[in-house]
């Protein structure tokens, strides 16, 4: 019998981060997956980051995760989305070469101390009472382990749809997966169904690139991880095309052959990234929808047409593609399809992503109703850190809605549940101005060092950076008179007196570059940090206001609600509220306020009754 502190099942994005995070915390960790060679594979679009998602990548990276560096290693196209807006909503995104990305993930996993890789199929959880005690593989191998992280993606009852065709989505080892699935279903966990889809892949040699608008990689030098000093791969360009009326007509004429409209797929799909047939059906009046043609790698001709995810029959897919400019002769290498799968209602999880009813079992990734690599990776990181902390009697870094998108997501999932695949959006983060993609390290790396989940290389980087930050602080506190700025031609009124540079940075048009006479060479020491601190200065009044709000929030966070709080006994709560509160089991009064449908009057009742219980 093998024994580990933490065992992670599934080598997808969630599983990789979970396993590496647990190992970084010092836990003896095992990662079990069907096929070790498939670790690091991207099931769909080889793009990483984007609006909201880029924040997650940077945060996972700030806690020394794998995703950011692997993205840089594979990146063949960098783009900062939303560049024209405020920096808090910039979304760093890369297009990665599949093979290079996968190689980087494999290297990270194999080079990770404390981590053992096991090829095999997880078949059954071994329980002791309600608690996890171990795992059995399909080949009979047994593991003694009290902290299991389940990162199995869509394996629970996955079915693929393409037109009239159906495939069971269990890949290899269907039986084993089914055994585990059955066991989970038998455990009476709340489950629901969701769907997602993927577009057909095109042969790039059959696309007429010359007639299409190019979208080059960003000119600047930024990378996903600060530990990647510079971009490593040659950069390619994407191209933009559109769907056309003729294509829409073809879709409309064949809607009856789409599983979505046949009623074969009843589950909800992502509203934020709908299939092309959904788009046509819902926004029928549109003349065309934008489609990005994204190369999948440097050594492949595969092109990913971003924007036409579909489960229509192959002949219709071809017809639609051929009506897009530049794609008149395009050849489909692999048709698109939709997947419908089971997921666990994440309200059954506690904030450390542990299944409330099965202590010791953690869940992360698509199995929790999310979509996307970044969402999966971020949850994997949390579950891995928490499982290791629990196994070793340590603390995981304290994440909350005010310091990370990661915590926003976990909080949303565990309190609100999902009704469609959950995707990160900046709108979900109420403290967005302080949660910028470019200050993730400042927010999180220090916390990670405290709890011991940051490796040597990043720790050294961090220490250097903190020293530089001190120097910046000194420089920023210099007091300068308005006249001196005005004399340099900066847009400030001369009569505004003397202020520290940090305050002048709040003024429109006063940039770190413009303050070079006072800041000197220091900006060049760390231009990114200089930029981050200038933004902090600019947002300072808003952040100060949020501080007051946060103090207030912490007051209601101080009032705990036990998991077995008898909501049904609180008069004035409707049955629906009782049900939602019981399902989500918010840990504090503040969390109860975020459960949907809980009214102000109900909160006051909860407050009073929680206080009384506490006093009793």
């Amino acid at each position, binding site marked *: 019998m093998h024994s580990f502190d933490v065992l992670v099942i599934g080598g997808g994005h969630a599983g990789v981060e979970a396993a590496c995070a647990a190992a970084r915390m010092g836990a003896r960790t095992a990662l079990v997956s069907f096929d070790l060679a498939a670790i690091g594979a991207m099931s769909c679009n080889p793009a990483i980051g*984007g*609006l*909201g998602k880029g924040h997650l990548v940077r945060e996972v990276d700030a806690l020394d995760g794998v995703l950011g560096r692997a993205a840089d290693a594979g990146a063949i196209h960098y783009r900062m*989305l*939303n560049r024209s*807006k*405020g920096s*808090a*909503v910039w*979304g760093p995104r890369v297009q990665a070469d599949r093979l290079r990305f996968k190689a980087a993930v494999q290297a990270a996993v194999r080079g990770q101390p404390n981590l053992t890789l096991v090829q095999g199929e997880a078949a059954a959880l071994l329980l002791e009472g309600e608690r996890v005690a171990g795992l059995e593989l399909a080949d009979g191998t047994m593991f003694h382990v009290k902290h299991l992280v389940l990162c199995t993606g869509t394996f629970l009852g996955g079915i693929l749809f393409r037109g009239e065709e159906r495939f069971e989505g269990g890949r290899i080892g269907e039986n084993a997966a089914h055994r585990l699935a059955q066991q989970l279903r038998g455990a009476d966990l709340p489950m629901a169904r969701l769907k997602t889809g993927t577009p057909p892949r095109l042969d790039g040699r059959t696309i007429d690139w010359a007639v299409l608008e190019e979208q080059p990689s960003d000119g600047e030098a930024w990378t996903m991880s600060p530990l990647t000093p510079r971009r490593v791969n040659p950069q390619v360009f994407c191209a933009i095309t559109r769907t056309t009326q003729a294509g829409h007509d073809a879709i409309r004429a064949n809607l009856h052959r789409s599983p979505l409209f046949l009623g074969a797929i009843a589950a909800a799909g992502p509203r*934020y990234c709908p299939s092309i047939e959904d788009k046509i059906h819902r926004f029928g009046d549109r003349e065309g*929808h*934008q489609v990005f043609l994204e190369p999948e790698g440097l050594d492949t001709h595969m092109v990913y047409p971003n924007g036409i995810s579909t489960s229509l029959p192959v002949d219709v897919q071809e017809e639609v593609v051929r009506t897009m400019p530049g794609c008149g002769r395009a050849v489909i290498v692999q048709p698109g399809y939709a997947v419908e799968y089971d997921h666990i209602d994440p309200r059954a999880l506690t904030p450390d992503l542990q299944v409330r009813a099965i202590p010791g079992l953690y869940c992360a990734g698509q199995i929790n109703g999310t979509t996307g690599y970044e969402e999966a990776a971020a949850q994997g990181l949390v579950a891995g850190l928490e499982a290791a902390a629990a196994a070793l009697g340590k603390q995981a870094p304290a994440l909350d809605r005010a310091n990370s998108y990661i915590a926003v997501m976990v909080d949303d999932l565990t309190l609100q549940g999902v009704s469609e695949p959950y995707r990160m*959006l*900046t*709108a979900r983060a*109420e403290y*967005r*101005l302080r949660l910028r993609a470019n200050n993730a390290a400042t927010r999180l790396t220090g916390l990670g060092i405290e709890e011991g989940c940051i490796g040597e290389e990043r720790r050294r980087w961090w220490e250097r950076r903190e020293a530089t930050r001190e120097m910046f602080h000194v420089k920023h506190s210099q007091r300068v008179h308005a006249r001196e700025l005005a004399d340099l031609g900066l847009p400030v009124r001369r009569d505004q007196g003397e202020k520290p540079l940090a305050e002048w940075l709040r003024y429109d048009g006063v940039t770190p570059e413009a303050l070079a006479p006072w800041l000197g060479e220091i900006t060049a020491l760390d231009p990114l940090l200089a930029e981050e601190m200038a933004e902090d200065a600019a947002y300072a009044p*808003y952040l100060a*206001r949020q501080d007051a*709000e946060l103090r*207030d*929030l912490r*007051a*209601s966070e101080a009032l705990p609600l036990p998991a077995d709080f*008898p909501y049904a*006994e*609180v*008069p*004035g*709560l409707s049955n629906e509220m009782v049900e939602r509160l019981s399902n989500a089991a918010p840990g504090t*009064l*503040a969390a*109860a*306020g975020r459960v949907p449908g809980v*009214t*102000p*009057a*109900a*909160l*006051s*009742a*909860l*407050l*009073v*009754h929680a*206080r*009384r*219980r506490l*006093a009793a």
Partner: protein
Amino acid sequence: MSAAETIFALSSGAPPAGVGVIRVSGPAAREAVLALAGRMPEARRASLARLRDSNGALLDEALVLWFPGPNTATGEDLAEFHCHGGRAVIAAVEGALAILDGVRRAEPGEFTRRAFANGWIDLAEAEGLADLLSAETELQRAAALANAGGALSRQVEAWRERVLGLSAEVEGVLDFSDEEDSADLPECFTWNIAALAGELGEWLARPRSERLGEGFRVVLAGPPNAGKSTLFNALVESEAAITSPIAGTTRDVIERAVAIAGVPFTFVDTAGLREGEAADPIEAIGIDRARGALARADAVLWLGAEGEGPEGAWEIAAQVDRAGFAAKTGAHFTVSAMTGEGVLGLKTALVEAARAGLPKPGEAALNTRQHARLAEAAEALEAARALADPLLVAEELRRARLAFDRLIGRATTEDMLDTLFGRFCIGK
């Protein structure tokens, strides 16, 4: 898990009256009905019953209503006895209730407190009910009733919805601009924010609800012996006194709170204002107070020489009955407190001015706390209107939403704690 104790109180007006309604709320309400009426009537139906005390002596023949919780006004089991309204009957029924186990007389406001604690009303409604209980004049009662009935809460919810709609538009621009609906904010966006800010502004300009408690402040001013005190007495005497929350009489400033025609007033008689240096320090303090009173006045009745009073004061030509009477050419009112001449006209004019300066009957009025939250929302909207960066616009809209949330207690935080544990003494 409701409070263990069961409370009762006479919820109709003071006896004697036609009918006296005694309410009982709490877990023992059912036992109370059984004990007095001998049986449980059908829920939510009025039924006639003979009420008896523990010795079986007949107390009254009354209508009994039984409302099982939690769908009741307090969120608890609730019973009502509609008795004959004589003092003796009421006292006897109350006495029979008071000796039951776990049943006691309610403290003032306790029914409201329970309704709030049991999730039946939100913060703004609870505040309205608390005001209602302390209302002494008709005008106070009407305003409190509007808040207690949820008028303010409904309004705030409606505003919140609108801000939510605006937020959704900005978020669309921020989160989906990489997709096609990237269009910038529509032209009408700023206009919509402005319209909403304007509406809040109207509410903010309305008199506060505390003004109802303080009443309309009328300060009588003028040199010594101008007839201030005589007129003061003529104005307040024979009017119903009310208990004003404001500090009472000092050496130099005398205050009286009265209701005239259902409108609350505070009349203030100041020490004589003298020109030049005050004779002694004590007198100086008196004069300072008088100045302070003038600054806080809603109306100043000026009894001194014409044109020498504070700006905007009503010129009063007093002591018209006196020999040395000095007529004022621009007098608003010419009165004699001795003969009563002109006093009625002055009172009528004051009531009219007060009605305009106090919250309108039936119109929800904001208290200082609510006013502060609404002002914050308005400020955030104004800021949002002026900003070009959608990210900051979104932040300001979020701040406006937060202010609304705090107004009605959705934010679960200090406002609620303050109200619960301060004003309502819940959770001791």
